[in-house]
């Protein structure tokens, strides 16, 4: 009998598995329950595939989406189109990652009561976006595809982030049956999910690298004859720029000068600086993560390396990430991480308030300051200050060649160096042709709209 009695310890093992497993679950519950509740399809928060727990407004309180019962969008058709990519469509093709991320806060979820208190009263999520700016940007883009992003590099608030093409969720066009290509990639939020060859806006990265690691670079001059040959291959400029220095090479976007600057920086340094400035890394905020960019020069010939420093070769950047990079230059090496959610309330209680999160220092202060001067000079001496009255814009344009017969993508990135309007921006017009000529008119309208919104307070 004694021995049988002693062997009952085996039962203890089974009990330990049961109780231990439950303990493990409770640990998971504490850590993950908020995500479980807000997961797509969660029956207490979603109506089928759509979130159903309150209203989403823009920064001024304009209702963009009411998801208490049926999903109803803004009253204004243009607003419905310009904000769709942040709110999601009825069929769930467009994922509203950021809003979904705060669904738990909207319903007032907490670990003790679950969603009990939220059953009667809905929540309210206020975005940092301005419907007014969104609409201006979408109208300015017209029928062209692309994205416009503007954010406050001091606070991190995204004021504008549109993705074109888009559609009116209350008047859905025949997307499946479309053969014109007008709706290609319509379900993508281009600001977050796309990557583009950067073209010359990438020269800002190369300039920053050169300023930091090439001694006496600001005094050096380069001669541009219109092309620089590498055996049978070459780097070309549209015109011969003649004698240029770093600053004028950037202003006039001289490829030949940058090919030489690339050699001065060197492959290893260039790789390190791209990593340090994080321009190709995915960016995460409010539960969304942007697409990762690309900078790969591991097995490249000198000519390809030269092109990689001019923003061609296999370089890819994501608009949201590059805009953040611009913000960091504006902030003299440290910017703010962008965010789209300003505040979330459940019933009467505020359950979430955005806090400004600083980026890492990605550039030394003096490098950022010089870069700022150069980019300021680009606008003052190149793109024209009359496009941005009352602002002090620093920027760089890019015309990224796509190969084949495709018209180049027009790119434009920079920031406003002004205490009143601390805005960093990026404009991408797909197949828009020349960077400045396609993007500046768009940005001009968008920044004017931002100014009036910010002036209003």
């Amino acid at each position, binding site marked *: 009998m004694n*021995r049988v009695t002693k062997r009952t310890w085996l039962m203890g093992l089974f009990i330990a598995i049961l109780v231990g497993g439950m303990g493990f679950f409770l640990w998971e519950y504490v850590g993950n329950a908020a995500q479980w509740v807000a997961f797509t399809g969660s029956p207490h928060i979603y109506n089928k595939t759509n979130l159903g727990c309150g209203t989403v407004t823009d920064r001024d309180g304009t209702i963009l989406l009411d998801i208490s019962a049926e999903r109803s969008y803004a009253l204004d058709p243009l607003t419905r189109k310009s904000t769709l990519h942040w709110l999601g469509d009825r069929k769930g093709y467009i994922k509203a990652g950021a809003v979904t991320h705060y669904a738990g806060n909207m319903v007032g979820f907490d670990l003790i009561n679950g969603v*009990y208190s939220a059953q009667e009263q809905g929540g309210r999520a206020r975005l940092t976006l301005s419907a007014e700016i969104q609409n201006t940007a979408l109208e300015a883009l017209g029928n062209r595809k692309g994205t416009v992003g503007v954010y406050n590099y001091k606070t991190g608030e995204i004021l504008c982030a549109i993705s074109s093409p888009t559609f009116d969720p209350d008047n859905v066009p025949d997307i499946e049956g479309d053969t014109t290509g007008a709706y290609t990639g319509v379900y993508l939020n281009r600001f977050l999910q796309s990557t583009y060859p950067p073209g010359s806006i990438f020269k800002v990265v190369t300039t920053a690298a050169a300023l930091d690691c090439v001694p006496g670079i600001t005094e050096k001059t380069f001669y541009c004859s219109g092309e620089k040959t590498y055996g049978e291959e070459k780097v070309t400029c549209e015109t011969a720029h003649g004698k240029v220095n770093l600053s004028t090479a950037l202003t006039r976007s001289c490829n030949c000068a940058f090919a030489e600057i690339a050699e001065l920086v060197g492959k290893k340094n260039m790789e390190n600086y791209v990593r340090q400035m994080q321009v190709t890394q995915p960016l995460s905020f409010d539960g969304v993560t942007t697409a990762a960019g690309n900078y790969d020069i591991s097995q490249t010939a000198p000519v390809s390396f030269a092109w990689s420093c001019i923003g061609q070769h296999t370089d890819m950047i994501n608009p949201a990430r590059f805009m953040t990079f611009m913000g960091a230059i504006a902030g003299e090496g440290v910017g703010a991480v962008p965010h789209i959610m300003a505040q979330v309330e459940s019933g009467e209680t505020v359950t979430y308030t955005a806090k400004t999160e600083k980026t890492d220092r990605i550039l030394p202060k003096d490098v950022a300051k010089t870069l700022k001067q150069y980019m300021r000079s680009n606008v003052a001496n190149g793109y024209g200050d009359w496009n941005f009255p009352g602002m002090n814009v620093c920027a760089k344009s890019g015309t990224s060649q796509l190969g084949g017969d495709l018209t180049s993508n027009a790119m434009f990135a920079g920031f406003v160096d002004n205490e009143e309007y601390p805005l960093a921006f990026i404009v991408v017009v797909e197949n828009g042709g020349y960077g400045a000529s396609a993007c500046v008119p768009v940005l001009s309208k968008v920044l004017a709209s931002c100014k009036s919104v910010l002036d209003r307070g």
Partner: protein
Amino acid sequence: MEMLNTFLQQNASVPDGLIGLLRYVVPALSLLLLLRCVIPLLTFRREPEIWAWLNFADGNQVPITHWENVIGRSKNCDVTINFPTVSRNHAVLTRYDDGSWTITDAGSKDGVYVNGKQVQICALNSRSRLSIGGVEMHLQPISEKQEQKMAQLRTKAASGWDGVANLMLLSVLQILMALGFLLGGAGEQILMIAEGFGGILLCQWVLFLFYMIIKRKSFEVETIAFFLCTIGMAAIATVKPQEAMKQLIAMVLGVLVFLFIGWSLRDLERAKKVRYLAVLAGVGFLLITLVFGTEYYGAKNWLVIGGMSLQPSELSKVCFVFAGASTMDRIMNKRNLIMFIAYSVVICGCLALMNDFGTALIFFCAFLIIAYLRSGSMGTVALAITALAFAGVLALRIAPHALQRFATWRHVWEDPHNAGYQQTQALMCIASGGLLGLGPGRGMLHHVFAADSDIAFATISEEWGLITAVLTVLAIAALACFTIRTARVARSSFYIIGGCTAAGILVIQTTLNCLGTLDILPFTGVPFPLLSNGGTSMIGAWGLLAFVKAADTRQNASFAVRLNGRESE
């Protein structure tokens, strides 16, 4: 009824307020009830009983404290005789219900001699001279008077009033839960729900009265079981209220099976006879299912008779426990273990043919427990586990739906609409319910398949809160702890093995059910004992509970233990 409904419609905030209150009252009452039931089960004084004395020729006296005692040289023996000619496990001394004793040779080298004659098995009396490996002794059983005295001195199990108080608590809980459904707007289904809860309430009091009549006072194990049935009824009320009556009938049948098995276990000789029947029935149930069964959800473990779906494998579990339990004299005999292993192989073969992965796993774990308790050899257990691993790999290759469950394991969020649907929905709803629940009838999980059985844990958690749901799991764990604790004072290894295996099956089923729902373990669709909706499973669970109850040797506690003589209060 109509007046009440109009009243509720006019005063919408009244039910909300009351449901708000219920969210706190139900977990609190459940906790109090379980504490009151579990504490006596886990803290009772374990008093060794002395049934006889073994008097040695040199004047030494050794007390015999069990009904089955191994005599031998090994330190693990109940009576250790450290003498070179004594085999390690020499003989087994067994007491019977009528107070008679036998000695059985456990395959010793030098044999057992009674009054000078070598015997295999022999009845003993106080004049019998016993010689084991040349050591002379004689057995001196205690007298009937001493036995009565001992019974009187033993601590009584809980007084009847504790049982009454516990049942009152449980009754309040049942009434409040039914009321919750009424306030939660159960509509016309409230009658079925009220019948369900009311039926359990009635049944528990009738059983308690019956215990009073047969002078048994301990009702903790039963109260825990009725508590689980009540919580299960709450899940049925929200998912399939039309099945409340069916489940209630199954519970009543279960209680009857519980009483029958308890009665048969009361007398070991009777138990051994019933055991033969059970062994046959265990295989019989499975064979019938194999021949006449219907395949649902990939497993052929259903028997449809006259519109009723039965799962005979649930009853086979009870039979298997019967088959595995064994008295000490038989344990010492290797042949019996081999017979049992052969029996297990037949059972496992049937289950493999039925393609019922979950049940096979439960039987296997039960087999492990029995094999280890009987042989004490980790080697045997390791061998069995290796065999299972091979069989498991084979089974997974053959049954794609089992493989899919393994593929989904810990990856449910990657496929929330198909393979991971039940579990992700369950987790979302558990989180939505929080610790205190959303209130009866306010859940959404009832739209999901098997919300009242396979994922009942989540349904309870959603509507009544995670605290209540976790308490149901702890209740099962407490029953298992009780069987370990009571094993020390068990009279026969038959009860230890039976009780431990039965409790083990309850624990394993709970583990697979709950941890499967929560994606901690692969999802196997095994019922939560006593709680999941399912008639056969309910009856089977009560049957297993009888073995747990039979292991309880506290005075006046278990109907499965005979009262001493014509003992009165």
